[in-house]
C-alpha cells in the first residue's frame, strides 16, 4: 500500500484501530533481550503448542521471528522478574514463568479466566494481579516507553492504530515550519543524551543556515555501561523514534537522516531496518511524503566499538568513514556537522519525545516534570536493587522514590551506599541526596549529571575507590588519544587509583589525583574527556574517608580490594583438616593436624584460595 495523501493515512488509521480492538484472548510472552535470556523462547513454544487447536487464543512472542504470523513487541522493563507473560484482555501479568507452568496456565487462565496466584507478583504479603497495580509500574509515568511491550514493534499499522504518525501529519498539514519549531522550543525539550541542550534551539539554528544541504542524525550509540533505554526504544517502538526524526527533518529542511547504532545491539538494527522499509512502503519516508514536497531518505550506520563515537563530532566522523575522533568546536555541528553540512544531532530518547509534543502541544508537555526540565526521563535502574529494569518517571522525581518505591529497595542486607548516575561521565549521589529532585540542573550542583540515564545502585559491599578505578580504567581505555589532557591525564589518574587499591598509596596521592582531575575537566577537548574525571571528583568529595583509609590504614571497609584483605581462620570452626594449607600457593598456612590452623599474613598473597577451599566456612576476611 502507498499513501498518497493525508486522507489515505487517516483511513488506514481507522482500519488499523478496528483491527487492533478485535479482542480475543492473547497470551503475550516477552521476548526482550532479558526475557529471552531467561528462557522465554521455550515457554512460547510450549504455549503455542497448547493453543494450536484453539482458534480463539493467540499466543504471541514479543520479539523474535519464530513464525511469520506471530507478533513481536519489546521489553516491558521488568527484566528481573522475567520471563514475563501477559494475558489480555484479562490484564494478568505472570512473572518468572517456567515451562512446567504452561499447562496449568492454559487450563486455568486461558480457558477459565482464573488467575494462578503463585505466578502473580507478590510483595509483603500482597498479591498484584495486573501490571499497572505493581509498585514497580504504579510509580512510573510511561510516555516515551508507552508502546514498548504493548504493540508489535515490527508492524507499522499497529503503531498507526495507537496514534502513530499523527504528529508528522500535524506538522505537514496544520502548521508552518516556524510554528513547529516554535512549539519544540516552547516545550523546552532538552536533549536526553546527557547535556540537556534545548532541542528547539538546536533545530532553529540548523533551519537558519544558508546551506540548504542538511542532515538529521540520531545518536543511538548508547555506550555508557549500565544504560539501555535507547536500546529498548529502538527495539520496542522504533517508529516513534523515526517519526521524531521525520518531524525534525521536515522542520529543519533536511533531505537525509542517519541513525548510528551501537554494534552491540543487533536486534535494534534489525528492527529499525524493518521499520524503515515499512515506512518507505507506505510512503512516509521517501520522496513527496503524503503528497507534499517533503523528501527524506534514511540510512543506518552500525558502530564498531568505540565509546567516544557517542560524542557528536566523533559520531559524524565515524559515519563519514573516518576514525571516530572529536574535533575542536566551534564550528558547531549545527553549522558544520555531517559531511561538513548543517546537522541536527539528537539521541534516540529525544526524538521519541517529539511526536507526543507535537500531538498534545507544548503546554501539555510543560505540565509534566519540572519547569526547567519538562517531560519524563527513562532510567536504567540496575545494580544492588530488588527490581532492576527500565523505568520512566517525570523529571524531578527523587532518588528515594526511584530506589525504594519503584525499585523495591536494596537487594540483600547491606545498607545503601550510593547511586552512580550518568555512567562513566557522571558522579555519585549518596544518602543525603536521596530527596533532591532529579532534573538536568539540580543534579549538576552535586558534581553529577543525569547523563543518558544509567542508575547503578550500590550497597555497603561496594568499595568507592574501586568504583572510581573501574570508571577510570573504562575512560582511559576509551580515550581516543587525540588531546593530551585526556590521553595522559586519564592514564596518570588510573595509575594513582591502581596504586591506592593495591595498598601502595601515599599521602601525596590524593592531592595529585585531585589536581589531575581538575586539569582534565578544564582542558580536555571534548565533552567525554571533560567529564571523564567526574567519578573521581565526586567520590573524592563524598567518600574522602575511604580513600584515606586505603592509603593510611591500608584498609578497605567493603572488603573488595583484594590486596588489602586480611584472611583469618576462626579457631572455633577450624577442624584442622589441612585442606587450606595444601591449597595455599604461598605456604602461609601452618598448623598441627586436627588442631586449628593459622595464617601468616606476612607471607599471605591474598589470593583467597584457602577461603574458597574451606568446607567449614572457618576462614573470614577482616577489613
Amino acid at each position: 500500500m502507498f499513501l498518497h495523501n493525508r486522507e489515505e493515512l487517516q483511513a488506514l488509521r481507522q482500519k488499523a484501530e478496528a483491527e487492533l480492538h478485535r479482542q480475543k484472548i492473547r497470551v503475550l510472552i516477552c521476548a526482550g533481550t532479558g526475557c529471552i535470556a531467561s528462557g522465554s523462547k521455550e515457554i512460547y513454544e510450549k504455549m503455542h503448542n497448547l493453543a494450536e487447536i484453539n482458534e480463539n487464543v493467540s499466543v504471541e512472542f514479543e520479539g523474535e521471528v519464530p513464525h511469520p504470523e506471530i507478533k513481536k513487541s519489546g521489553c516491558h522493563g521488568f527484566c528481573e522478574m522475567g520471563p514475563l507473560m501477559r494475558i489480555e484482555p484479562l490484564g494478568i501479568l505472570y512473572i518468572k514463568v517456567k515451562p512446567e507452568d504452561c499447562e496449568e496456565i492454559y487450563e486455568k487462565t486461558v480457558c477459565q479466566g482464573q488467575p494462578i496466584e503463585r505466578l502473580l507478583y507478590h510483595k509483603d504479603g500482597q498479591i498484584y494481579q495486573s501490571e499497572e497495580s505493581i509498585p514497580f509500574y504504579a510509580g512510573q509515568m510511561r510516555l516515551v516507553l508507552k508502546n514498548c511491550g504493548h504493540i508489535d514493534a515490527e508492524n507499522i499499522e499497529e503503531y498507526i492504530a495507537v496514534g502513530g504518525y499523527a504528529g508528522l501529519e500535524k506538522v505537514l498539514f496544520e502548521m508552518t515550519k516556524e510554528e513547529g519549531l516554535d512549539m519544540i522550543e516552547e516545550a523546552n525539550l532538552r536533549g536526553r543524551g546527557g547535556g540537556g541542550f534545548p532541542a528547539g534551539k538546536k533545530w532553529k539554528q540548523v533551519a537558519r543556515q544558508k546551506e540548504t544541504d542538511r542532515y538529521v542524525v540520531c545518536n543511538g550509540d548508547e555506550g555508557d555501561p549500565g544504560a539501555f533505554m535507547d536500546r529498548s526504544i529502538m527495539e520496542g517502538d522504533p517508529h516513534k523514534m523515526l517519526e521524531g526524526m521525520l518531524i525534525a527533518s521536515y522542520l529543519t529542511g533536511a533531505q537525509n537522516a542517519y541513525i548510528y547504532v551501537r554494534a552491540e545491539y543487533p536486534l535494534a538494527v534489525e528492527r529499525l531496518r524493518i521499520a524503515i522499509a515499512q515506512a518507505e512502503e507506505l510512503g512516509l519516508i521517501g520522496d513527496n511524503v503524503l503528497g507534499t514536497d517533503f523528501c527524506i531518505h534514511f540510512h543506518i550506520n552500525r558502530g564498531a566499538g568505540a565509546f567516544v563515537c557517542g560524542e557528536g563530532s566523533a559520531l559524524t566522523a565515524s559515519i563519514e568513514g573516518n576514525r571516530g575522533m572529536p574535533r575542536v568546536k566551534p564550528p558547531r555541528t549545527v553549522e558544520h556537522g555531517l559531511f561538513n553540512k548543517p546537522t541536527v544531532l539528537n539521541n534516540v530518547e529525544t526524538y521519541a519525545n517529539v511526536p507526543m509534543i507535537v500531538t498534545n502541544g507544548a503546554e501539555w508537555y510543560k505540565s509534566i516534570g519540572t519547569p526547567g526540565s519538562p517531560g519524563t526521563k527513562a532510567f536504567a535502574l540496575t545494580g544492588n536493587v530488588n527490581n532492576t529494569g527500565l523505568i520512566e518517571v517525570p523529571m524531578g522525581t527523587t532518588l528515594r522514590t526511584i530506589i525504594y518505591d519503584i525499585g523495591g529497595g536494596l537487594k540483600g542486607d547491606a545498607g545503601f551506599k550510593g547511586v552512580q548516575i550518568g555512567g562513566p561521565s557522571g558522579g555519585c549521589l549518596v544518602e543525603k541526596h536521596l530527596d533532591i529532585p532529579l532534573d538536568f540542573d539540580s543534579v549538576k550542583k552535586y558534581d553529577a549529571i543525569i547523563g543518558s540515564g544509567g542508575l547503578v545502585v550500590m550497597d555497603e559491599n561496594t568499595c568507592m575507590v574501586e568504583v572510581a578505578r573501574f570508571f577510570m580504567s573504562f575512560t582511559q581505555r576509551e580515550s581516543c588519544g587525540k588531546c593530551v589532557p585526556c590521553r595522559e591525564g586519564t592514564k596518570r589518574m588510573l595509575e594513582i587509583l591502581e596504586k591506592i587499591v593495591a595498598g601502595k598509596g601515599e599521602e601525596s596521592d590524593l592531592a595529585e589525583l585531585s589536581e589531575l582531575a581538575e586539569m582534565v575537566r578544564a582542558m580536555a577537548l571534548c565533552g567525554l574527556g571533560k567529564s571523564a574525571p567526574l567519578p573521581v571528583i565526586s567520590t573524592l568529595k563524598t567518600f574522602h574517608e575511604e580513600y584515606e583509609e586505603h592509603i593510611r590504614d591500608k584498609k578497605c571497609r567493603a572488603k573488595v580490594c583484594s590486596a588489602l584483605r586480611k584472611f583469618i581462620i576462626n579457631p572455633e570452626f577450624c577442624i584442622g583438616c589441612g585442606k587450606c594449607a595444601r591449597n595455599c600457593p604461598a605456604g602461609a598456612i601452618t598448623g598441627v593436624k586436627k588442631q586449628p590452623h593459622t595464617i601468616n599474613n606476612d607471607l599471605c598473597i591474598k589470593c583467597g584460595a584457602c577461603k574458597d577451599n574451606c568446607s567449614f566456612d572457618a576462614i573470614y576476611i577482616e577489613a
Partner: protein
Amino acid sequence: MLDQSYYTKTDEIIEHYGPKAASLIPIMQDIQAEYRYLPGELLTYVASKIGVTEAKAYSVATFYENFSFEPKGKYVIKVCDGTACHVRKSVPVKEALMKELGLNAKKHTTDDMMFTIETVSCLGACGLAPVMTVNDEVHPKMTPDLAIEVIQNLKKGGAE
C-alpha cells in the same frame, strides 16, 4: 595467500555499499562478519577499490575495538564488565573462564580455535547482571560455576 573466493565475496560487499570512502566501515564490518576476522590482504584490496590509502584503511581499522586482525574462535564469549555487571561481580566470572580455558591477558583464543574470550563494556542487559554472551546468545545471572558449565556444555556439544 587467500583463495579467490575471498576476493569475490569482498567484491560483492563493496558493490552493496558502493565504492566510496564513507563505505569503509560497513564494508569492513561485513567482511569480519563473514570470516570472523579482518584479513589484512582484504583490507589492502578494499582500500584500493574504494579510493582511500592503505594507511587510512589501517588507521580506521585499528581505531575501532570491534575489528580484529587475528582469527577468532568458533565460540566468541563476551563477558560483560559494564557498571551493573561489575558491581554484581563479573570479574570472578571472567577469571574462572580464563582459568578453565588456559587463557590470559595476552592470549584470548584457545589453540584449538574453539573459544575466544573478550571483555565488553556493556551489553545492555543490565537487568540480568552479570551477563555474558556466546556468539550473541545472552546468558544471564552468571556465576563462575555456571559460566564453566556453559563452556563444558559447548565442549560436549562440539565433540558430538
